[in-house]
């Protein structure tokens, strides 16, 4: 049979494809419906948090930080309750990471404060003297991309029925309204809690510094 296959490339290719493809079918498909169910009370990310998640992706925090607490005592002692599948139901993409050069962040919102983050992102050594994490000062001046984050909220609401309210809808006008009424006040609260005047001023001028969005996201991780 193998000799014959090696002379008939089409059937050879079909054979290879079947042999490699069925594992995916058996392993991945059956779990799909169940694993994507959210835990009770889980709210979708606010637009500001989504913008912060984009900063998390852009500066690629997952290169060094995981968001997955494994079910060991040493991990739950250090980071809190082990992670549950349903907690990730609105994570697109998932951000578990694969390396802990720095600590896990899945529940960082439980034990750090916005002003701690502000100091840490500005100069990590100021709060952790031996830290090898670089400072992310550019996040204090770059403005977060709120419009793209809003577009993402609209998209997941439309395509995946993520339970957002009526205020999340397509169009520039809806976005401007949402920004003025919801986004900026939410950002201002975070900026004030970060205790830095430059951040507060920037938010008041209508722009949200990347680090404010990022901290909103980190605060949400609980």
């Amino acid at each position: 049979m193998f000799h014959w296959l090696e002379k008939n490339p089409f059937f050879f290719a079909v054979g290879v494809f079947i042999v490699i493809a069925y594992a995916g079918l058996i392993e991945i498909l059956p779990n799909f419906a169940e694993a994507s169910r959210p835990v009770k009370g889980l709210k979708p990310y606010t637009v500001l948090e989504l913008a912060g998640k984009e900063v998390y992706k852009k500066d690629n925090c997952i290169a060094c930080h995981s968001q997955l607490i494994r079910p060991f005592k040493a991990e739950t002692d250090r980071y809190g309750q082990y992670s549950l599948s349903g907690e990730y139901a609105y994570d697109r993409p998932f951000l578990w990471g694969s390396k802990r050069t720095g600590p896990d962040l899945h529940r960082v919102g439980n034990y750090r404060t916005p002003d701690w983050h502000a100091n840490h992102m500005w100069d990590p050594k100021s709060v952790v003297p031996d830290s090898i994490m670089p400072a992310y000062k550019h996040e204090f001046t770059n403005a977060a991309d709120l419009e793209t984050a809003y577009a993402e909220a609209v998209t997941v609401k439309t395509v995946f029925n993520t339970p957002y309210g009526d205020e999340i809808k397509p169009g520039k006008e809806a976005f401007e309204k949402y920004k003025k009424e919801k986004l900026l006040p939410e950002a201002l609260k975070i900026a004030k809690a970060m205790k830095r005047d430059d951040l507060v001023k920037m938010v008041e001028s209508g722009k949200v510094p990347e680090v404010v969005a990022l901290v909103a996201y980190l605060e949400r991780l609980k």
Partner: protein
Amino acid sequence: MQSNATLEYDYSIVKLFMWTTVIFGIVGMTIGVLIASQLAFPELNYLLGEYGTFSRLRPLHTNVVIYGFTLSGIWASFYYTAQRVLKVSLSESGLLKALSKLHFILYIVIATFMVISLALGITASKEYAQMEWPLDVLVVLTWVIYGINMFGLIGLRREKTLYISMWYYIAFFLGVAMLYLFNNMEVPTAFFSGGLGAWYHSVSMYAGTNDALVQWWWGHNAVAFVFTVPIIALIYYYLPKESGQAVYSYKLSLLSFWGLMFVYLWAGGHHLLWSTVPDWMQTMGSVFSVVLILPSWGSAINMLLTMKGEWNQLTENPLIKFMVLASTFYMLSTLEGPIQAVKSVNAIAHFTDWIPGHVHDGVLGWVAFMVFAALMHMAPRVFKREIYSKSLLEAQFWIQTIGVVLYFTSMWIAGITQGMMWRAVDEYGNLVYSFIDTVSVLHPYYTIRAIGGLLYLIGVFMFAYNFYKTATAGRRLEQEPRYRSPMA
């Protein structure tokens, strides 16, 4: 050999891919040494402002090395090997020749935009699948063109039986196509929001645990179908060719090939041990990872036994050195992987530096060594010149071997140290170390790793110089060498 004389193979596209292999190798591994040094000396994070942090550079390193260096090497080899084992020249078909050029051009366009977008932080954030949707579309297009070229050449072939290397190239094509398509299913956000925000932004079709499953089904099998399958295609061609020995066992090649195809996909779950994916999947991932030793070692042993009775060549020919050590590293790496996939070992190893250590004994020792050997075997035949310097090749071999050994030994120690410290408890059951203790302790190992990487990079520069000189200043050859590549 006689039939080769009448058939003039077309190497124009091979040469282009060979040069990009060298260039991407230098770029990708230079970034690698920089980011390795950043972990030991964090001040190095500030050389390029926002664009120079470890976090921003790490995907650049991985993507340039995987999709730049390695893929270029694979495709250079493919266009070289396929013509020869199928006994057909690319110049026989105007269409295929044109498509092969288009293949190269699209590839360069994608690589350029990949580098720019990753530097700017535009990323889908899934490891080894970071490119955003517009680039994904181009990748699919390029892949289709590669497929047309491959099956086109197969259609025109004079040698009816497909050589082992072709089996692996076909599997490479199919595997990556399937995995890439499914893992990169994403929804562009501008389409559904009335044109709001960045046009290139998208969200994953899958959420949370499902996304993780699909991602590591990809991530693991990208290793399978980019770092393993096509590299085996390389060794099955170049080792017998360079040594003048027949492949040791056809049956062993059969067993290894179909075994690898059957088992590899299942093992992806070992990246998600102790996570929120269901237990039975984790167990499957573990079990199949251990089974995977069989087909992996099958290929490696088949290659080592091919040298039976001719081991003197190991001392005489540096290309044989590269290839024999490559199969040895392949064995090491494919034993180490399954060990890490055992759940109790994984509990310590996961998230630590043992993982990059494991990856690098595979990619530096196996993948890159094979790519170097392949390029140097092709060079005299493609440029019709003698290899510029044997002693430079020998020196490169030893410097890089020392580099790899420093790399993985330091990362083994670092990983296990960190894994043990994370879980260490005192007599009352309290954690002994704060997290930062487990970071500070790694400084010496990070330094050794950076030195190992630097040695390896020096070897890459030696290779690049040797390759450049071979192409431009090597002694001209009258006749194509039959087996051993001539070198000065």
